């Protein structure tokens, strides 16, 4: 077993890339060490579905050859990563986290896998997920072929969903970065619960070719990393047009910090009610402090709230209707009963009965949501809210359990996850402190294709804090 210092597994992309370029460590040595750790600790967190050691070491040898001949291929060259098991890797199982698809193998690579391969990043394995990325909904964290995602900070807590393995694997130092997916909350939630930095890109910026579809009009793929800078470097590699994906926006992304806008020029908005009433009491101090740090960075913070629209209702109707259409063969064949979560099974069956007029009504509401954000972003550059009200829930806790705390009277921004997804907006989950010994995070949301603005704030916040540097013991 390769014997590298523990810090290596928690290094950022730039740090690892510098060590590889200076030949302080070889790529084969690094890859072997990561594969050992991935295989040894992955099952501890139910975080992995497949090790790709042999292919990874072959790729690592190529990287070492390139480096020996001074052929540098960018910041991701030689960096170990993992992907959510809804992305196809040619010739290997792609389970979608669900028993009915456990033996599924595609003959081609997803576009993001191809792009990362071209950037010479090293795919060391596939990561677990909530079955069918959550489907319409699910009741328990155990809704997965690999069991509940366990949080590296405390294994009695959930790592979040549906990109459960991606969150846990980055937090536990099994990979340097991971690719997750979000339909409504599946990058933001595990990133926040696991204390890592996750970026949900603008809808259409990253190709979904080769990824499982849950909702054609809402699905996005994005990076889950150690830092905002790492998210920028990975997004740069995976963004771009793709003729194989009809949703592709035909835009690329370049991570160039020197062209970031000055933070003091940005107009940011938040809702005090989110921080003072919606959040759990144990997390309020951390969120309050984080807001003060943002002020100290020079951000101008104004108060705002979302207009009163039925964000959750529209989102759940759209996801349910599209998921039922996508998985109709699974439902009709009866194999849906092999899923782990009874609520998801029932939800998929019932979703077949959603009427066209209801789906279209949800889509008409979505038009209003899009318009509402266009209006809101005339006066504001970035919206800031807690990503979730508190730290990770217990693994055994039903996820549909109602909160015992009264809902705040004011609306605030607490529905920013479904609202932002309906409008296809980019979001950054930024670790901002701890509560009950577990990470909590802010979410920052910007105009479409303004990922650079989010990353600028994230990078500056992380220069002043060390929350993203802390790691589970």
């Amino acid at each position, binding site marked *: 077993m390769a014997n590298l210092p523990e810090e290596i597994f928690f290094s950022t992309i730039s740090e690892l890339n510098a060590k590889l370029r200076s030949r302080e460590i070889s790529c084969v040595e690094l890859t072997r060490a990561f594969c050992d750790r991935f295989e040894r600790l992955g*099952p501890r967190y*139910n975080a992995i579905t497949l090790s790709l050691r042999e292919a990874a070491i072959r790729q690592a040898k190529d990287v070492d050859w390139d480096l020996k001949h001074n052929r540098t291929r960018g910041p991701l060259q030689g960096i170990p990563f993992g992907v959510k098991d809804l992305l196809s890797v040619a010739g290997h199982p792609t389970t979608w986290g669900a028993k009915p698809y456990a033996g599924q193998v595609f003959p081609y690579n997803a576009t993001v896998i191809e792009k990362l391969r071209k950037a010479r990043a090293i795919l060391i394995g596939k990561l677990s997920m909530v079955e069918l990325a959550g489907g319409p909904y699910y009741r328990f964290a*155990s809704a997965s072929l690999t069991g509940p995602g366990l949080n590296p900070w405390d294994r009695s807590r959930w790592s979040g969903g549906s990109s459960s393995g991606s969150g846990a694997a980055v937090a536990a130092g099994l990979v340097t970065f991971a690719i997750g997916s979000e339909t409504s909350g599946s990058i933001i939630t595990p990133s926040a619960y696991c204390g890592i930095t996750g970026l949900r890109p603008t809808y259409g910026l990253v190709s979904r070719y080769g990824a499982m579809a849950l909702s054609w009009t809402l699905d996005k793929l994005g990076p889950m990393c150690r830092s905002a800078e790492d998210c920028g470097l990975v997004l740069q590699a995976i963004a771009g047009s793709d003729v194989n994906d009809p*949703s592709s926006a035909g835009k690329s992304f370049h991570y160039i910090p020197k062209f970031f806008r000055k933070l003091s020029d940005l107009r940011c908005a938040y809702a005090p009610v989110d921080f003072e009433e919606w959040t759990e009491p144990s997390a309020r101090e951390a969120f309050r402090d984080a807001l003060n740090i943002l002020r100290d960075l020079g951000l101008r913070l104004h108060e705002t709230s979302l207009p009163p629209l039925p964000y959750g*209702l529209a989102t759940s109707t759209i996801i349910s209707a599209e998921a039922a259409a996508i998985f109709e063969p699974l439902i009709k064949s009866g194999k849906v009963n092999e899923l782990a979560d009874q*609520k998801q099974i*029932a939800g998929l*069956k019932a979703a077949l009965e*959603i009427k066209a007029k209801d789906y279209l009504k949800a889509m008409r509401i979505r038009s209003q949501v899009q318009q509402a954000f266009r209006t809101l972003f005339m006066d504001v550059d970035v919206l800031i809210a807690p990503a979730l009200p508190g730290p990770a829930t217990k693994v055994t806790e039903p996820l549909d359990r109602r909160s015992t705390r009264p809902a705040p009277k004011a609306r605030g921004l607490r529905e920013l996850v479904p609202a932002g997804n309906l409008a296809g907006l980019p979001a950054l989950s930024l670790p901002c402190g701890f509560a009950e010994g577990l990470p909590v995070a802010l979410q920052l949301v910007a105009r479409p294709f303004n990922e650079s603005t989010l990353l600028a704030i994230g990078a500056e916040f992380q220069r002043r804090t060390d929350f993203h540097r802390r790691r589970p013991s």
Partner: protein
Amino acid sequence: MKVTRRKALILASAGAPALAQKPVSNPSGSPDEEVRRAREQVARAAEALEEYELPMSTEPAFVFKAT
């Protein structure tokens, strides 16, 4: 597809902790009962959507590519 012993081991061991960590008892009843509840939820959502008034001119979102 070739499944190596290592791959088989990883796949098998990944599921093992799940067996040891069962969730609290499912608060719902039988699968049929669960489906009945899910159908009720679909019906409630349909009612809520019906009650939500929109100007007749509001068209569905056709463009998902952000602008």
